[in-house]
């Protein structure tokens, strides 16, 4: 759970540079991964729709499959690319949605104060107390999962954290002079929230949004791992990992390590970038 970043005064300028280095590394990794997923299938086309039972479970290198094939004969490298498209798409959409909903909700609560704050935040507390898995399981039986639907569901489950964050920020901003001035001048609540509070919290929101995207990608992987993800033959990294796990005892490492490493790499990279953004934000010296 992240909170508001305040200036960190560090004695050693070297560490600030290292922080930037990590963010740079993260950005590079992300660019490479996105290219891999979006452009990859164009350069390395494979059939990810039709099964090929006679080429099932080949180890890497056999029959021209650099990373081998899975139990239905799909090429693993190609599958990694299209799975990445799904994971990234859902992750980004869900992360943005969660941040957007959370920001508005939190801003209304934090600025409004009083009973509005109490009611809105109690709802947030209730949401936190219901296990997300439960809601996801139920949602899975009611709807047919697709990229958009999953992004919607995950976004609706994850907005709670940004809401709390934004509420704290809004509560602080509310005490600032310029906000008080505008309120006195008669600006409506919604106007204040949308035209003054949210824009002034952009820095925090961007950082929060970045971490939300990382969390959403993890949550998508979790959901697909439990079998509630996009229906086959579409797939994502979590679903690939889930299938791979059933082959733990067979030594089919090419079904397990590639998707797992992909998830770790991407989420790590996003976290680096988020950290870097947070430091940049702090360095601008907000009092």
């Amino acid at each position, binding site marked *: *759970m*992240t*909170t*508001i*970043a*305040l*200036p*960190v*005064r*560090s*004695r*050693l300028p*070297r*560490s600030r540079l*290292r*922080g930037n280095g990590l963010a740079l590394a993260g950005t590079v990794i992300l660019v490479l991964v996105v290219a891999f997923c979006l452009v990859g299938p164009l350069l390395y086309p494979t059939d990810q729709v039709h099964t090929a039972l006679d080429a099932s479970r080949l180890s890497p290198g056999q029959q021209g499959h650099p990373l081998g094939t899975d139990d239905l004969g799909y090429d693993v490298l190609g599958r990694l690319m299209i799975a990445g498209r799904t994971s990234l798409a859902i992750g980004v959409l869900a992360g943005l949605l969660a941040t957007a909903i959370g920001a508005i909700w939190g801003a209304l609560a934090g600025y409004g104060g009083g009973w509005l704050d*109490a009611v809105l935040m*109690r709802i947030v*507390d*209730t949401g*936190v*107390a*219901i*296990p*997300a*898995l*439960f*809601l996801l*399981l*139920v949602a899975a*039986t*009611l709807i047919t999962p697709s990229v958009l639907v999953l992004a919607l569901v995950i976004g609706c489950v994850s907005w709670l954290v940004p809401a709390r964050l934004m509420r704290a920020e809004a509560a602080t901003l509310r005490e600032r002079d310029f906000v008080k001035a505008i309120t006195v001048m008669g600006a409506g609540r919604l106007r204040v929230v949308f035209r003054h509070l949210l824009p002034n919290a952009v820095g925090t929101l961007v950082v929060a949004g970045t971490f939300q995207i*990382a969390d959403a990608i*993890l949550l998508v*992987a*979790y959901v697909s*791992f439990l079998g509630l993800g996009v229906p086959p033959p579409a797939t994502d990294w*979590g679903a690939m*990992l889930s299938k791979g*796990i059933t082959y*733990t*005892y067979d030594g089919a490492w090419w079904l*397990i390590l590639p998707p*797992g490493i992909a*998830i*770790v*790499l*991407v*989420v*790590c990279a996003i*976290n*680096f970038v988020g950290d870097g953004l947070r430091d940049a934000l702090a360095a601008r010296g907000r009092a």
Partner: protein
Amino acid sequence: MTRFLARRLLLALIVVFLVTVVTFVILHLLPGGPARGVLGVKATQAQIDAFNASQGFDQPIPVQYWDYLVRLLHGDLGASYTENTDVSTLLAQRLPKTLLLTVTSTLLGIVVALPLGVWQATRRGRAFDVVTTGLAFVLYATPVFFLSLVLIILFAQVLPIFPAQAAQGDTLAALLSQPASLVLPVLAGTGVTAVAYSRYMRSSTVDNLAEDYVRTARAKGTPERTILWRHVWPNSLTSVVSMIGYSVPVVFSGSLVVETMFNYPGVGLLFWNAARNADFPVLLGVVLVIAVTTVLGSLLADVVQLLIDPRVRVPGAKS
């Protein structure tokens, strides 16, 4: 103080109540109901109707909820459809085991996360810090099922030191009789808690470092190291209780995955199996337990925060 507590308690009760309402409604919105799943493919319509009548499914939802609430207040959580046992008995059997896992993971998580969080916030730039920071980031980014899988492959197959699954058995004693089988699940659980806690610790330390009294101390020329260990560290420590309180839902979700991966017979696995079998009474029972724990955790955290805060804010209190 008492008024504050009373108000918070009331709010907590409201939240628990709301959780049960939402859960109940959602479960009963599921199409088809559990009848067919319980009675099997060969069940006749008459048998299905009889089942629905005996469970009260033919009543309107508000009535059903009221009945549920009344039974709940009498301590009757209903009976599981698939296990032919009371939900309360099942929970009583499984809860201690989950507590064993989560409490041990929490303690170990704190041991790992506290120093980690503090070091990360200060970023001293030495090799040790770089390595730990790197490892920490990788840990943040690893889904807990992948971590569990890596642990199984490394320590139960490549180097067969520990068993890949927890000991079976109804009682806590059965579980404890094979302590080796607890190592991997606890390690995976610690992965979850350490990640959650170190993130919290890091932010909290960052906040603390920006406090006025720190700036004052720096201005006075106190060495950075002393500031860290004499002022920041104790303040961070006191937020440990709050941290544990707030992170109950995260720890529960993590334990659910760990229990599934290692076949650990706790509440998480019970929940997962009940979800697959549409075993409503068990699902409701588990959600209730989680909700109560979460709410109590938050309440405890808030109270401690309030108690601790006034003392911490006094600058230079520790010499």
